[in-house]
């Protein structure tokens, strides 16, 4: 997109009649009134009459042939009404296919057919009249496996004679592609120094406290499948379920009640919706499945992988060109293979001017468990690579870490800025964000303190990272890799706003509420349109597929602030316009003289004379059709779809993966304790620019929370596997999350560089901390360990890893007096 068209957008949106009164205020969340009473109404709180329960038998092997399954003993347990295995699934359902990878296997079903490919893969499903009976019956199913060689690393998977995860594909490489922008060879020829490093990322992932839930009932009288599920992407689920179990989408009603945490983890639930939907149809009973925590930890993580980065540097610190080669172990889940790599285009250049850039990537199938688009998808690792490389380049060129960043930051006068691949950074002030972060964190004082304390033998470090937080997926980019027409491209949502027959303003954004304050945020926006208080707006916190939605409806990709607000605001303004037209006709007053305030149509701005209440207006609009204006349609309900207008169609030389770009600077201050090589975060400062903020309390909470989730990835969290692909991290005793004891106190300051291409100037906020924190924490620990000459290129930085890095160093010999 050119600079010009962005400015055109500004003009288009400034014509909106919106005036902010409640937008921008720290309104306390209405959601919380239910939560603190324990009556939020999560999926597991809902029960059908004659509720039955499902339990899943999972594979104990990472790779094995299924020789035989015997369900006879399990079927004899009183109360068991249905057992499904791969045999039934193969005859009743279609296999799942790839969304982005060029090759699509034909043998991956919603239950394992003939073969298991990861530990934890569902092998059989039992439905019984109680959850205890279902679990009993699962333990009585006998399965004979014949173990197959396990492919557990990228290197092994790509060997010529490697066992194939999907033999029908002929290779474990699901996709390989190469992109080049600018003149990379010239940049590398002209460089004073080439800085090279391989950086690694471990398997980790968000673990929402509420696990996955599906409750399905097939109503024979309506031939309709009704499902309650903890689904972050229900619009797409309906489509996938139709394709898989062959129930028409128009006969699937999917409802998503308030969700107990999403983080992307619940974007992969659709195949369990399909499985329970099929089971419910076959057995005629409502079937509820509540995932155990162990099942939640078996699978659906972020992929492990590594990236070879080469930076062509001028000796003054200017980046001339960058080469990136990305290797990603996407496990075996062809559905989203390659997504982590593709999404990296959104923040591949970070906050820097990098005109010459090449990127090649491989998505590799292994016996790792499946992956899901976890918080930020490929963006956290991408930001980790860029920001670590900035620190490493500074070290190698003997430059200051702040100075090298300042040298390369995109200057404010170049905003909006189009990156080498075509990503449009629509707004932001990166030098100012950095300046404020240095001030907020007392950076210079900390450097002095660090020097002082080091003389006392303490290992203190400061890490700094400046990151881009892209939001709003332009979904078609998945099909950069595919020649055929994508099912989805662009970015939009559809929502409904109405004045109900009782005169109350009701909103259904029609997306899952995953805990990020949508109800309150929408109430603030809509109240401003109708001249009401936020508490007077009724906002539905659930999704219902029978109400207006686009097929990619869902809460993901940091897009709520953009496309859902866009849809809700558009519907509200259309409804307001209709209200004023009806009122003008009924009251015989010119429309321009009327406005809305306190639940009334009013005239005269000074005196706000109340002419007609919403209640009365609703009575006329829904019931008194003879006194209703003939040029209007009765009823006060508007369904509107909003599309972000800046999504570009895809060409390989110029594409935008995401449509908004928040940014932040994180400054992390740590101490490494030599007694046990534990790391204590002493101070953590964030300056965050998410554009226009609708509710500062909510935005600040999200920025802090996502940062602590990133700290988990940087210091604690890793799914560990043995050489047979056995997952050793199946409880929270083994998979370590930060608790209140580990989480630091955070200082946070907001900046507002409004986005010109969203209706209110808002930008993304839910992922930023998870993106930018990794490099800030790693940089701080590396800085603390400077006397030991450590370079941190992988996460999580655990005490064990630190010990292994430092134990051969001279500094360690010095402080330990040579004792080991």
């Amino acid at each position, binding site marked *: 997109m050119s600079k010009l068209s962005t400015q055109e957008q500004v003009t288009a949106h400034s014509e909106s009649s919106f005036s902010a009164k409640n937008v921008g205020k720290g309104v306390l969340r209405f959601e919380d009134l239910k939560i603190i009473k324990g009556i939020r109404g999560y999926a597991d709180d809902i029960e059908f009459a004659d509720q039955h329960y499902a339990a899943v038998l999972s594979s104990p092997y990472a790779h094995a042939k299924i020789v035989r399954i015997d369900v006879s003993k399990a079927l004899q347990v009183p109360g068991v009404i249905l057992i499904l295995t791969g045999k039934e699934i193969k005859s009743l359902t279609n296999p799942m296919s790839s969304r982005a990878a060029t090759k699509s296997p034909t043998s991956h079903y919603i239950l394992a057919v003939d073969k298991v490919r990861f530990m934890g893969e569902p092998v059989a499903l039992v439905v019984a009249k109680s959850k205890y009976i279902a679990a009993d019956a699962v333990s009585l199913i006998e399965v004979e496996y014949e173990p197959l060689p396990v492919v557990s690393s990228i290197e092994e998977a790509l060997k010529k004679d490697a066992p194939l995860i999907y033999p029908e594909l002929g290779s474990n490489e699901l996709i390989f592609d190469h992109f080049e922008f600018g003149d990379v060879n010239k940049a590398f020829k002209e460089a004073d120094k080439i800085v090279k490093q391989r950086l690694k990322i471990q398997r980790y992932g968000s673990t929402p*406290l509420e696990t996955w839930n599906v409750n399905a009932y097939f109503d024979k009288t309506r031939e309709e499948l009704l499902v309650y599920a903890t689904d972050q992407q229900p619009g797409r689920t309906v489509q996938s379920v139709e394709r898989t179990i062959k129930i028409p989408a128009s006969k699937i009603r999917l409802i998503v009640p308030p969700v107990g945490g999403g*983080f992307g983890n619940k974007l992969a639930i659709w195949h369990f919706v399909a499985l329970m939907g099929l089971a419910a149809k076959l057995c005629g009973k409502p079937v509820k499945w509540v995932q155990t925590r162990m099942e939640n930890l078996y699978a659906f993580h972020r992929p492990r992988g590594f990236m070879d980065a080469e930076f062509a540097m001028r000796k003054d610190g200017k980046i001339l060109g960058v080469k990136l080669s990305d290797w990603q172990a996407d496990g075996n889940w062809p559905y989203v293979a390659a997504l982590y790599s593709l999404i990296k285009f959104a923040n591949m250049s970070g906050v820097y001017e990098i005109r010459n850039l090449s990127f090649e990537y491989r998505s590799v199938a292994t016996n790792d468990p499946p992956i899901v688009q976890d918080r930020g998808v490929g963006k956290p690792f991408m930001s980790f690579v860029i920001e670590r490389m900035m620190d490493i380049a500074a070290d190698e060129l003997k430059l200051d870490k702040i100075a090298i960043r300042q040298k390369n930051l995109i200057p404010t006068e170049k905003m909006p800025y189009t990156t080498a691949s075509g990503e449009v950074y629509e707004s932001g002030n990166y030098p100012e964000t950095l300046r404020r972060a240095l001030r907020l964190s007392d950076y210079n004082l900390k450097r002095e303190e660090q020097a002082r304390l080091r003389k006392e033998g303490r290992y203190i470090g400061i890490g700094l990272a400046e990151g881009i937080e892209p939001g709003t997926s332009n979904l078609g980019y998945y099909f950069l890799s595919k020649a055929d027409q994508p099912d989805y491209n662009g970015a939009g949502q559809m929502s409904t706003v109405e004045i109900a027959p009782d005169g109350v303003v009701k909103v259904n954004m029609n997306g899952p509420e995953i805990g990020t304050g949508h109800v309150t945020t929408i109430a603030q926006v809509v109240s401003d349109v109708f001249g009401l208080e936020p508490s007077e707006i009724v906002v539905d916190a659930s999704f219902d597929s029978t109400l207006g939605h686009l097929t990619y409806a869902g809460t993901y990709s940091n897009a709520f602030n953009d496309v859902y607000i866009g849809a809700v605001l558009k519907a509200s303004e259309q409804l307001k316009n209709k209200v004023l037209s009806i009122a003008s006709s009924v009251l015989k007053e010119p429309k321009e003289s009327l406005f809305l305030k306190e639940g009334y149509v009013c005239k005269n701005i000074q005196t706000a004379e109340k002419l007609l209440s919403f209640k009365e207006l609703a009575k006329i609009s829904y019931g008194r059709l003879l006194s209703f204006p003939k040029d209007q349609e009765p009823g006060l309900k508007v369904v509107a779809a909003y599309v972000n207008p800046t999504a570009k169609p895809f060409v390989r030389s110029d594409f935008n993966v995401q449509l908004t770009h928040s940014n932040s600077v994180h400054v992390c201050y740590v101490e490494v304790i030599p007694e046990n090589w534990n790391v204590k975060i002493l101070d953590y400062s964030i300056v965050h620019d998410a554009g226009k903020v609708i509710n500062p309390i909510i935005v600040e909470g999200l920025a802090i929370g996502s940062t602590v989730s990133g700290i988990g990835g940087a210091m604690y969290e890793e799914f560990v596997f043995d050489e047979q692909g056995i997952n050793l991290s199946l409880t929270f005793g083994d998979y370590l999350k930060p608790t209140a004891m580990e989480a630091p106190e955070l200082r946070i300051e907001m900046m507002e560089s409004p986005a010109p291409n969203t209706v209110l100037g808002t930008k993304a906020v839910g992922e930023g901390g998870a993106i930018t924190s990794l490099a800030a924490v790693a940089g701080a620990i590396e800085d603390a360990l400077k006397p030991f000459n450590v370079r941190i290129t992988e996460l999580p930085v655990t005490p064990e890893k630190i010990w292994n890095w430092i134990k051969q160093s001279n500094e360690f010999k010095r402080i330990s007096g040579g004792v080991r």
Partner: protein
Amino acid sequence: MVTVSMKVNGKNYSGEVEPRTLLVHFIRDNLKLKGTHIGCDTAHCGACTILWNGEPVKSCQILAVQAEGADLTTVEGLELEDGKYSIEQESFREHSAMQCGYCTPGFLMMTRYLIRNNPEMTRDEIREQLHGNYCMCTGYQQIVDAVQDAQRKFIKSRK
């Protein structure tokens, strides 16, 4: 099946359960009190925390039959009789100490116990006391703020 009887939120309940029924399942499935949640199955996360004769316990690790005769409080028992929010509820709301809210009932029960038993806690001590309650959303900062505030309110209410 065996019969168990206990007091929950001041009311007497009894019900027929299999001896192996977990207390949290009895509370959720038999008593239909859905505010007590299950987050981990292994006593790490604290979403199922309730008070047992005033002491916090993780109800996913206890059989319903073990609670025979016990006096239990769940999140549904926090609200005052006149419909007003309790100190813990008020503090959590005022400090926006929740996002998805799934962990909140467990934190509220833990807070009720902590402010009554150790009202002089520092911020670090609060963090230590809360380490058995996981929150995946907030990063804990506003939760610690809320507990501190609840402490202050509790002390004031006693004066």
